[in-house]
């Protein structure tokens, strides 16, 4: 690891000012992915700007205004998001996705902002010896290489899968992200926060140098909203998802008025399965309609040599997550 300077501003405004777009300045919150990137040789910051030294609760609190919105500060720890009573009660898919992040130790350190900005886990991207597209090279090594964990949807020219566990749930709830920079701020839907590889293969988010996430704003669900999250992975202790699904259902009795279904770990961005949602809208929720939606979610999947197994896995996780979200109104075991 290279030598670097370390500064710890006392206020968020100061942090933003310090971070004015200069080459080599990198913001540090929990530092989980950051330390990986530095040790892997992918990042050699000239200066780390520590955000955890910022005083005050603004960036560390979860605020709920019923009928309006849930506001999650960028420095809220994943563990606190997972156990927040309001999030668990009204935004179950978000709490459940946070509860599945990594390990208890990491959840106690990692922040919401850091989780959303983490870089992909693709082993070719993480390996400094592989000059891949995402590192400015001219080849995606996964295409003819080892691609068992890579994208089955939305891939090309790079086939990473988006790594955040909570991003798909936030997308399903229609969250917006407030981004600040020295002398300004902007607010964008999280759907526009992530950059598909065919738009720009070297970045995952629209965050520009000098910009920081300040908070995530989630509109309060209207009417009767049910939600759920489910992921499959090889190891049950500390592993990345093979596939994951977040499902948000707006229901009237057993009828689905609207649905938002977003997949994780299958595409370079949180993958909105619009066809699956269309298949549920206006229908009575049942095992049959859940199955039809799951089939629709994977239409158009385009696997590589080693990852076709992710298609039945993704279909299954959509099916079971719909039933998990709807378990109060659809009888039977969601896991069966």
């Amino acid at each position, binding site marked *: 690891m290279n030598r670097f300077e370390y500064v710890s501003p006392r206020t968020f405004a100061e942090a933003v000012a310090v971070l004015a777009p200069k080459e080599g300045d990198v913001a540090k919150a929990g530092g989980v992915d950051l330390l990986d990137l530095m040790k892997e040789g992918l990042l050699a910051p000239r200066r780390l700007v520590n955000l955890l030294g910022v005083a005050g609760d603004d960036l560390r609190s979860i605020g709920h205004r019923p009928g309006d919105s849930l506001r999650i500060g960028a420095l809220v720890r994943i563990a606190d998001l997972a156990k927040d009573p309001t999030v668990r009660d009204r935004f179950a898919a978000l709490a459940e996705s946070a509860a599945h992040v990594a390990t208890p130790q990491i959840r106690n350190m990692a922040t919401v902002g850091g989780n959303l900005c983490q870089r992909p*886990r693709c*082993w*070719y991207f993480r*390996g400094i*010896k*592989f000059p891949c597209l995402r590192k400015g090279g001219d080849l995606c*090594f996964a295409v*003819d*290489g*080892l691609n*068992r964990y890579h994208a089955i949807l939305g891939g090309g020219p790079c086939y990473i899968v988006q790594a955040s566990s909570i991003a798909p749930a936030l997308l399903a709830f229609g969250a917006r992200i407030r981004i600040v920079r020295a002398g300004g701020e902007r607010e964008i839907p999280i759907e526009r926060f992530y950059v598909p590889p065919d738009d720009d293969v070297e970045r995952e988010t629209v965050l520009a140098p000098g910009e920081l996430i300040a908070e995530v704003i989630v509109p309060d669900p209207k009417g009767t909203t049910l939600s759920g999250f489910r992921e*499959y992975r*090889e*190891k*049950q*202790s*500390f*592993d990345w998802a*093979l596939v994951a699904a977040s499902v948000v259902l707006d229901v009237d009795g057993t009828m689905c008025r609207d649905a938002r279904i977003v997949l994780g770990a299958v595409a370079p961005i949180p993958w909105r399965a619009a066809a699956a949602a269309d298949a549920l809208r206006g229908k009575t929720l049942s095992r049959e309609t859940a199955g039809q939606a799951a089939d629709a979610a994977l239409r158009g999947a385009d696997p590589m040599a*080693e990852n076709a*197994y992710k298609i*039945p*896995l993704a279909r*299954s*996780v959509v099916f079971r997550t719909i039933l998990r979200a709807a378990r109060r109104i659809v009888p039977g075991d969601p896991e069966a």
Partner: protein
Amino acid sequence: MTVIIHRDGRVEARNGAQDIGTGTRTLVALIAAEELGLRVSDVEAKIGDTSFPVGPASGGSVTAPTLTPAVRDAAYHAKRKLFEVAAPKLSAKPDDLAAAAGRIFLGSDPRRGLTWKEACALIEGESIEYTGERSPNYAGYRGGVAGVQFADVEVDTETGIVRVIEVVAVQDCGRVMDRLLVESQIIGGVLQGTSYALFEERLLDPATGRMVNANMEEYKILGSVDSPKITAIPFDVYNGMNNIGCMGLGEPPVIPTAAAIGNAVYNAIGARIRELPITPARVLAALAGRKG
């Protein structure tokens, strides 16, 4: 292996071998204490120092079966020397003495004796020291140990995810010296075996030959949630082939686990997985093959 009996009653057992978590230090003290008629806590096992007599390398499941007969040999001869020192005081011949329960006494009249400390106080100079050795095994040594394991697994046939619910492991290691250590070694073997049955795989990029998962994140090793319930059953076999009757236990318990898990998966889904690790992708492929 050197055993030293000090004039103040302290006992040291010294060897250069290292304890890599298998309990070597405990076994060295245990055998010396048994031979000298003392408590395990009365013996100071000193190991892992190159100034001590040469010990075996940590590998090949040989540390305990190599060291402990030498401990017995050294302790026995050091004890004989102590008997020679104590015999005149008891008006007896060294051959007539015995050591047990912290005393040196006449085998024919246990009331006639000395406490361990009284006997040691008779030593001229600082200590009695004897360096013993590991003799060859007696004739008829069969070598090798046997084990059998049973696995109970749960397979999600929609996702191909395998959970190992329970493993029962019966393992022979010759004579069991310390039941807790044997059980612990068996449990460790089953955990490693479960990990390589389901997760561990060294992945080399086909174009460059570089390993892509050479880190503790992508090289998958089982964690607590993945660990089965393990029932370890040490199986005593006294074959009398050396002065301890023990054989190695370091690696043997890891051998049957993956095969037992593989058989259990076959029993559950009716399809053979012939490659490790047994990943969801391979289970789904095997299930598809069975249907076809």
